Every structure is written in C-alpha cells, then in structure tokens.
C-alpha cells in the first residue's frame, strides 16, 4: 500500500526533468505521450517506493506536483 500520493497538474508540465533528476528513489520518468502543449509530462512509475519527501515538488519550477502522505 502506498503511503504517499502524488498529483501532477499534467497539462502544465513542461517535461523539464528536474523532478526526475532529484527524486532520491528514481521513480519519476517522462511519459511517452505529449500533453496538449506538446511536452512529455512527468509521471511516477512506482508510487509504493515514494517516501513523500517532497523533493520533486520542491524542485519543480512550475509547481506541478502535489505531494501528500498518510
């Protein structure tokens, strides 16, 4: 059971990969489908490994990610 919840405001994501770069668990990747703006947005691969540290959200310039935990 995932203790963390990540919500992405996908349509505003610009696929910059800063979240991906700094996730200590390396569980973020870019999607293979673009959003309507033409960017490949970030998504989480395995939410169970997420420790809800918030690092991805802190580093996201566009405030795309909401991080919640139990």
């Amino acid at each position, binding site marked *: 059971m995932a203790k*963390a*919840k990540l919500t992405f*405001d996908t349509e*505003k994501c*610009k*696929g*910059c*990969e*800063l979240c991906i*770069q*700094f996730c200590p668990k390396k569980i973020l990747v870019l999607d293979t489908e673009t959003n309507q703006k033409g*960017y490949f947005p970030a998504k989480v691969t395995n939410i169970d490994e997420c420790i*809800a*540290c*918030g*690092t991805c*959200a*802190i*580093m*996201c*310039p*566009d*405030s795309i*990610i*909401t*991080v*919640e*935990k*139990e």
Partner: protein
Amino acid sequence: MAVVYKKSEALTDAPLTYCPGCTHGIIHKLVAETLVELGVFDRAIGVGPVGCSALCDFFFACDMFIAAHGRAPAVATGVKRAHPDKIVFTYQGDGDLASIGTAEVVHAAHRGEKITTIFVNNAIYGMTGGQMAPTTLVGQKATTAPEGRSEEHCGKPIRMAEMLATIEGAKFVERVTVNSPANVRKAKAAIKKAFECQIEGKGFAMVEVLSTCPTNWGYSPVEALRWLDENMVPYYPLGNYKNEL
C-alpha cells in the same frame, strides 16, 4: 492524508511562461511561500521587472506592478512611501538590476528603503534572446559577445551582492542558488530573512539568486544546473554578505 507540498496560495493558477526547467519558476515559489509563511501575503505588493519575469504580475497573487526596465526599486520606493505598512518586494533580473537599473538599486539601498529585492542572476539577458549581461562570465558566449566575453574588452562580471553590501542602508544581503534541493532550502531561508528585515523596519534587503537560463545557455535544464554549479558558483561565492538583523 497530509499535504507535504502543494502550490502556494500566493501564486495564481496562470501557467508560468518560463521555458521548461527555467529556475525563475523555483524562485517564484520560494517568494510566494515565504509571504504566506510570514503571514504577510495579505499585505504584500510586488514589483516585477522587464525581463522574462515581466509577466510575473500574472503569477503572483498579490497586487503587482511591472516597472520599466531597471526601475523596479524606484517603483517600489514610491509604493512603500505611499503604504509604509505594506510589504513591498521587487523581483528583478540581472540585466534589469545590474545594468540599466544600477542607479535605482544602489539608491534604494542607500536610502535604506524598507523593501526586499529578489535578484535573479542568470548571467544573460533571457527575454531578449541571450545578449551579454554585466554578470556574463568571462569566456561565456552571448549573442552580443559571439566570441565569448572578453575581460580586455569589457571587464570581468560585476558582483552585485558584494557591491551593495558596502552600502549602509543595506541591512541584509545574501547570495544563494536553487540548483539542488539543499540549495533551494538555503535560498528560502535567505528570502525569509530578507522579508523579516523589512517587516522589522531595518532597511534594504537583497537576496541574489543564481539562476539558470537553459534556453540561452544552450543546455538542457538539468545540464544547466550543473553548468551553474561549475561556472557561476566559483565566481559568485554563495553566502551572506551582510546581516544586521
């Protein structure tokens, strides 16, 4: 579930117009979060520059001005003198603050204006497409320094934090960056102190934030963070240059 991180209420819903991975966005968040955490969002007034952040009046949810290029400290002076009880900040780029707006920022500091200045130093003119800034590093290429900046021709880059720290009216001056989670946290702490300096009525406060311009530097956002670390930080030492809090 408890919220660990969500977008600050001091930011509007408007999508940021910055390029992918541009750290302007991170700096926006830190300012917004600080306003809320210090409980002054409801009496904050911001003054944006001309530069990539010339649309920041759409992004910050408080009352906002956009000044003419370089004049944000003068505008902020007018605003603060009209409303001494409000919390007034400027948000400026390096072309804006360190080139055309030099006199304005020096004299806001000199008068000890009780404002907070966020100075986003990305060593380039972002908005206009990569011309040289006074902060462009020696050897760094820019569209107006196609062979790279030459010291013989136009000197070494200017260090604004060091310079402004010599002014009596400047009460808090610190240089930070946002190229890693740890540095983001330090940057936020500095921004917080810079606002506290104003809240306590001490005088002028500035935080210089080393920032990236992936587009005009010609790097990916992640590479840009590394370039910043390897090239900018050595010339622009991070740290506090003045703290009379």
